[in-house]
């Protein structure tokens, strides 16, 4: 075997040697002939004649060395390529079909691989879990410092248990300052994940103590961007937020945060131990643990119940019922939001691949029919059925491989263009690339495509020579083709309904009423530098002067400063049950869910276009220190004062501080993104005192036109005050569009797949109808010659395609029904069983199918019977 392989690779050398040997033979014979008195030309000719067919001799000699198997495969491939060259239209169609299928699925695979299949980028990642409470305030698992400290002391089903606080904006305060994202982690965070620093070391316990030596670890990307991957950087000091810290290590390239947050550097979280002791709650942490071998997340959860019960005692009674202990596999924690979408997209693209395979199978079937005489001849000459099968499979595999290779090119192209329309973050698109796993996937797809599409025609029994030679009308249209067409129709219909539902959802999302008018509304987001605005007074002065300057910009109709902005993003909130109402006993049972609140300047409601339902908006006087007014939205007012008498009542949010008088009720704005159910909301007037010295605020600006020049004016207004202050400006439209990024991505992709599927199915139907018509041309002509009308002939052909289409549509409706109910979590404002969608999609498919079938049928019906029959 090995020698044959070696011979295989030494092929050229061997060929030359064989050729030379034979040439020398012919030369010697020619010389002999010349010596016998022949003229040189005839001598040469006679010598060649004696030698026989040199090609065959060479081939047979070579095959002695290469082994029959290799040689005949090579022959088959050679033969297949030659056949394909002779029929470029067929070849291009088939290769492009496979390319479309393999390309699209490989691109999608490279995206979903990390979400669905690939091991987590941590050693033994399947043992990593996210541990914490889940509560209405924060559905994603969290831990409180006090509990975490207690738990760490106890016996746990974990090998390692670590935590981090999340990311904060931090500033690299040295030459060319830079805003960074700092991950605040416990000292054992990196080792607990099983990650070894690329260079240097992880944090020490000492560095994690308050007042410990400053330390920082760099991510690979940041190390490259900022320090040009200089390994000597370890041990050097950097200044972060004005504090000198030592670079202790660099994280490896594959490192990612378990929750996929973007970070530039890691710093120790430095919890103050005194603060993490009951009855204090301590910091809010995210806990991650490595399960002991053999422990499942469920077992761990079970074992931690006593600890959890203990912690629960410190939870206010109001919360207890709603707090749960969660031990969640890390993969599930990371992918919960995108898992459904990934499964959907991957399923859809596999359906496209299947349609493509069926299409190629169909093309090959039609081709096989025209090659029957050839196959019959081969069978008659002694080729076994297995040999013919192999020939068939080799041919379709050649197609599959060619298509697969082109498909990889397409995948690379798609991956380069996808990030343009893809949402940030969880989809991992930035990381998606063509690595060996994608290559392996594409190869598998190509082989499957080749085998599937080749096996179907190969299953047909080779006809006898006599049958193949008989008149062509005697031939039946292959039975398989109908089934293939129906399957394609069914798959396309399912894809089309899914795409329609997603598009419908997207439209609903983007157009749903948010409670405020979104045109010409700009959002200016500013976060002040913690060093340069260290004093609250400085910050207050900044916001005050900014408000005044922006108000003078031409075109600005109204503006407001708020600590947060709808319809999504971070807003302050508290639980409903801690809002006391004067004259009522405090609510003791349950939390009542969350209530959002904002601190806004009087222009807020005018600027957003929020209606004042009762009472009055804020006035300038309300901003004076000591003012104690509050405005509720309708949702909160309805709940708290169902009689509709909210105005004039007094409430006390947070059970402390002054009682506040409700002066107005306003219409509700969305505050939970586009899909979430909005929480009730109340507003306080942004006080003109030290409390308003927030680092971060939004300026909402309503203008007449919302033009580019407005953004420029705002930027220069900020720059006038502080030239180094970064400003983010986006329009409300953009913000809303960004919120719909992920649904849009899903909808666009699925629509693309549905279109590809439909197109392929239509091409398939076109091809098969054309084939059918050409097979029955004679029959059609005879019928027409004896008086059948053209339209009758047309109907005869169409009737068939309609029958296949109808079968496909029925199967497709069932598949679509099933698929769309699995999609339900991705839908918004539309039911998975919406009959209009199914009806519309069915009609569209039927129309397309009819068109595809009509073209070849019309051609047949138009043909001149006399001429066609004569040709036969």
């Amino acid at each position: 075997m090995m020698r044959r392989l070696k011979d295989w690779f030494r092929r050229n050398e061997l060929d030359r040697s064989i050729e030379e040997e034979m040439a020398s033979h012919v030369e010697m014979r020619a010389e002999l002939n010349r010596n016998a008195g022949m003229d040189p030309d005839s001598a040469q000719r006679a010598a060649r004649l004696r030698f026989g067919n040199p090609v065959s001799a060479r081939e047979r000699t070579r095959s002695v060395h290469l082994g029959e198997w290799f040689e005949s495969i090579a022959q088959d491939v050679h033969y297949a390529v030659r056949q394909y060259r002779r029929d470029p239209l067929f070849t291009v169609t088939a290769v492009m079909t496979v390319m479309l299928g393999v390309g699209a699925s490989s691109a999608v695979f490279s995206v979903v691989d990390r979400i669905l299949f690939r091991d987590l980028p941590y050693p033994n990642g399947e043992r990593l879990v996210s541990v914490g409470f889940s509560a209405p305030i924060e559905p994603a698992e969290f831990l409180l410092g006090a509990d975490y400290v207690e738990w760490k002391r106890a016996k746990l089903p974990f090998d390692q248990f670590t935590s981090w606080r999340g990311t904060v904006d931090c500033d690299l305060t040295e030459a060319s300052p830079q805003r960074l994202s700092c991950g605040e982690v416990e000292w054992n965070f990196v080792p607990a994940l099983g990650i070894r620093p690329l260079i240097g070391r992880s944090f020490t316990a000492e560095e994690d103590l308050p007042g410990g030596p400053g330390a920082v670890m760099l991510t690979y990307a940041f190390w490259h961007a900022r320090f040009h991957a200089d390994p000597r950087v370890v041990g050097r000091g950097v200044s972060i937020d004005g504090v000198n810290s030592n670079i202790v290590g660099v994280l490896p390239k594959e490192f990612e945060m378990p929750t996929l947050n973007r970070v530039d550097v890691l710093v120790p979280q430095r919890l103050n131990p005194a603060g993490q002791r009951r009855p204090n709650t301590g910091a809010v942490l995210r806990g991650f643990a490595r399960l002991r071998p053999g422990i499942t997340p469920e077992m761990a959860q079970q074992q931690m119940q006593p600890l959890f019960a203990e912690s629960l005692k410190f939870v206010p009674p109001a919360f207890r019922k709603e707090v749960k202990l969660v031990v969640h596999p890390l993969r599930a924690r990371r992918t919960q939001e995108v898992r459904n979408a990934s499964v959907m997209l991957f399923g859809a693209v596999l359906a496209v691949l299947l349609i493509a395979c069926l299409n190629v199978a169909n093309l090959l079937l039609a081709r096989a029919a025209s090659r029957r005489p050839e196959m019959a001849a081969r069978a008659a000459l002694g080729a076994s059925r297995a040999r013919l099968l192999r020939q068939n499979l080799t041919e379709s595999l050649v197609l599959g491989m060619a298509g697969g290779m082109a498909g990889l090119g397409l995948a690379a192209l798609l991956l380069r263009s996808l990030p343009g329309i893809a949402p940030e973050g969880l989809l991992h698109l930035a990381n998606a690339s063509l690595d060996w796993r994608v290559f392996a996937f594409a190869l598998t797809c190509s082989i499957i495509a080749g085998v599937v599409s080749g096996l179907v025609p190969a299953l047909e029994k080779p006809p006898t020579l006599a049958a193949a030679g008989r008149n062509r009308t005697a031939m039946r249209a292959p039975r398989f083709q109908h089934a293939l067409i129906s399957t394609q129709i069914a798959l396309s219909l399912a894809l089309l309904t899914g795409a329609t539902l997603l598009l419908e959802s997207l439209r609903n999302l983007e157009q749903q009423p948010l409670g405020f008018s979104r045109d010409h509304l700009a959002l200016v987001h500013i976060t002040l530098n913690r060093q340069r605005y260290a004093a609250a007074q400085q910050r207050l002065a900044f916001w005050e002067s900014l408000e005044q300057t922006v108000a003078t910009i031409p075109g600005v109709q109204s503006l407001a400063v708020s600590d947060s902005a709808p319809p999504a993003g971070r807003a302050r909130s508290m639980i409903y049950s801690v809002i006391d109402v004067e004259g009522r006993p405090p609510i003791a049972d349950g939390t009542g869910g969350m209530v959002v609140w904002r601190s806004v300047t009087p222009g807020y409601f005018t600027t957003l276009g929020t209606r004042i339902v009762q009472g009055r908006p804020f006035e300038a006087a309300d901003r004076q220190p000591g003012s104690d007014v509050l405005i509720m939205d309708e949702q909160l007012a309805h709940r708290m004062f169902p009689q509709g008498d909210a105005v004039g009542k007094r409430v006390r949010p947070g059970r402390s501080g002054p009682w506040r008088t409700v002066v107005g009720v306003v219409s509700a704005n969305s505050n939970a993104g586009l899909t979430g159910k909005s929480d009730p909301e109340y507003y306080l007037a942004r006080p003109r005192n030290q409390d308003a010295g927030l680092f971060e605020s939004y300026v909402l600006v309503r203008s007449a036109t919302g033009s580019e020049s407005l953004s420029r004016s705002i930027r220069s207004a900020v720059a006038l005050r502080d030239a180094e202050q970064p400003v983010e400006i986006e329009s409300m439209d953009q913000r809303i569009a960004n919120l719909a990024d992920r649904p849009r991505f899903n909808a666009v992709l699925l629509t693309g797949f549905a279109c590809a599927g439909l197109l392929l199915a239509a091409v398939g139907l076109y091809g098969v109808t054309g084939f059918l018509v050409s097979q029955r041309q004679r029959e059609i002509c005879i019928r027409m010659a004896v008086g059948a009308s053209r339209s009758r002939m047309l109907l005869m052909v169409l009737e068939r395609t309609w029958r296949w289409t109808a079968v496909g549509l029925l199967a497709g409706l069932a598949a679509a029904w099933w698929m769309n109910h699995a999609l339900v979590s991705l839908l918004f404002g539309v039911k998975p069983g919406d009959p209009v969608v199914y009806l519309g999609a069915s009609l569209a498919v039927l129309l397309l199918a009819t068109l595809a079938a009509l073209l070849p049928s019309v051609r047949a019906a138009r043909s001149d019977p006399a001429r066609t029959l004569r040709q036969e």
Partner: protein
Amino acid sequence: MPKTASDSPQGALDLLILKALSRGANHGFGISLLIEETSDGLIHLEEGSLYPALHRMERDGWLSGDWQQTPNGRRARFYALTSAGRKRLVEIEERWKNYSKGVSRVLRYV
């Protein structure tokens, strides 16, 4: 009518080649010439078909082949019997004799 080797029963070509080479190393053309002359022109090999057989027998270790100079100064691949080839020759020569004896008896009586 001259017979070509491919018309003859299985193994005849192998036998002819081995026998021809038992008189000393030779190249493909030399072998075909030798067979032609010693059979008094009764056997005309299809010369091209010699080579697959030569290469097969070389692969199987009955022959060894290498490039040499002919007396006329031409490069040619010379084949020589190996000891395995010699053994093989005895074996198939025996078999052939039996076979052809059998064939002539059948021809005589039927």
